[in-house]
């Protein structure tokens, strides 16, 4: 079995999968990927189950050297991938052999790259997941982000690799990322803590993604959202996509590494189908929130599930 040597780690590369949803009640953050669509797509391109653990790389992918045969695919943000210095393509499976080196250019749109290896990365599941949760130093590769000099074992046997048909995403299934995004959101759970004017501000004005944004959440800057009586509540549970508005009136979209509970009012929740867009936003981009009903949000989620199925059926087979 092959392994991958990290010759140069990017700024933040961790192993992620679906995360640990069932341990929230024990105070354990869920973690998991920030862009579910690119995550599933990467796995499908290399013939993996959709939710196998992958590398999630922020802004720049790592330089990797392979010790043997492997098949991988890169999805997510727009970046140039090179194999032994020769330009190759993202959103398609790539076959490499011992000694091959893969490197990346900086992402030019979007923020996060996903790298799936055929057969997966050989790290143990902790509490049912391969996701790295850095704050508790658990999961993934030694509970931390990858560093230069690390070596990841891959799970695929040579025989399994030889049978893989390389796939390429249908061009119409590849997302584009823009500096201005409209996110659909459902009001609640604490919309009654805001004035009518406050809710109008939230849905009526653009918000800028600040540089104080990471896997935990995106802090936004823009017009102050007016509360009725302050931004504090008795702490309750927080879901991914929740838009928290503390006393200063500036919204925060809570994401994968969020805490499980919090004591600030939540005005709305970004719909699940739009979360992959959030995970690809970069500081300086603008968001407008569009109000939708819970029924419309659930319809959008059914369409999202269909989109993954279509991605799978529309993949093109490559020679080799």
């Amino acid at each position: 079995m092959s392994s991958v040597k990290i010759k140069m780690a990017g700024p933040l590369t961790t192993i992620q999968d679906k995360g640990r949803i069932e341990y929230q009640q024990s105070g354990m953050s869920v973690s998991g990927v920030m862009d579910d669509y690119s995550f599933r797509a990467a796995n499908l391109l290399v013939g993996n189950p959709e939710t196998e653990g992958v590398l999630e790389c922020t802004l720049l992918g790592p330089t990797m050297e392979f010790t043997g045969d492997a098949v991988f695919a890169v999805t997510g943000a727009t970046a140039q991938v090179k194999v032994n210095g020769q330009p190759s393509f993202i959103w398609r499976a790539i076959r490499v052999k011992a000694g091959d080196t893969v490197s990346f250019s900086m992402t030019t749109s979007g923020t996060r790259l996903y790298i799936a290896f055929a057969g997966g990365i050989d790290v143990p599941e902790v509490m049912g997941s391969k996701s790295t949760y850095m704050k508790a130093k658990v999961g993934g590769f030694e509970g931390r982000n990858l560093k230069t000099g690390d070596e990841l074992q891959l799970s695929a046997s040579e025989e399994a690799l030889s049978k893989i048909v390389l796939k390429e995403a249908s061009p119409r299934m590849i997302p584009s990322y823009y500096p201005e995004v409209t996110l659909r959101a459902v009001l609640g759970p604490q919309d009654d803590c805001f004035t009518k004017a406050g809710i109008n501000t939230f849905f009526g004005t653009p918000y800028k993604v600040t540089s104080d944004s990471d896997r935990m959440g995106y802090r936004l800057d823009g017009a102050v959202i007016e509360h009725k009586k302050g931004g504090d509540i008795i702490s309750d549970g927080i879901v991914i996509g929740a838009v928290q508005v503390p006393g200063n009136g500036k919204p925060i979209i809570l994401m994968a590494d969020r805490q499980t509970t919090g004591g600030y009012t939540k005005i709305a929740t970004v719909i699940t189908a739009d979360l992959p867009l959030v995970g690809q936003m970069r500081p300086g981009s603008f968001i407008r929130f569009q109000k939708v009903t819970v029924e419309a949000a659930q319809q959008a989620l059914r369409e999202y599930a269909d989109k993954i199925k279509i991605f799978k059926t529309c993949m093109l087979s490559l020679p080799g």
Partner: protein
Amino acid sequence: MNEKARYLIAGDSSIVVEFGNEISEEISAKVRGMYLAIEQKKFPFIKAMNPTYRSLLVQYDPLQCSYEEILETLQGLEDNLKNMDLPSPNILEIPTLYGGELGPDLGSVCEHSGLTEEEVIKIHSGRDYLVYMLGFTPGFSYLGGMDEKIATPRLKTPRTKIPGGSVGIAGSQTGIYSIDSPGGWQLIGKTPILLYDPQRKPPILHHAGDYIRFVPIDQKKYQSIEEAVKNGTYEYRYFPKEGGAVK
């Protein structure tokens, strides 16, 4: 407390069942009741739950169950809550070495309260604490009901690293750091047991609605428990609390 729960929408995949707008044992018991009622049914469309001070977050799969359907299902369960036989909550014993190097702020608590070390320890370990919820870090419990006599403000300058297992006081709250983290609580002792161990099954033993009981131990006992925990031979004291009354 509300006569009927409020059902709040938390996006397309979650619903919050809220029983009131204050912190009370009565509301906490309702949250626990609702949690157990849902858990007993083993609904395939329920993905996760998160019980907190006054509400229960229920995460479901909208591809299997629409908002209307989950609302109706949960309201039906709520109507039946008063007929439900709830199992006794559990007590988790926390053997604690008070004071010394592991509880460097015990002196500050004495100073602030005008009590001796023995008195502070007796008061702190003299009652069971309701676990209102878990959060902040894996295995961290928000506990209720500390005696106001030993309430002490947080440190003016938080420490950058507090070892997991440290027992502290912050205002009228007490708690146990579950993993190494920064923090400003007054540290009065430390437990050698692990509230959270990702390799253990289950990684976190206790639940919201359970009780925590601090049991004072000496240095020798601390070392023997620490050793047993390391070897995986320590038997955690986690058992049903009979009756409902708080000690």
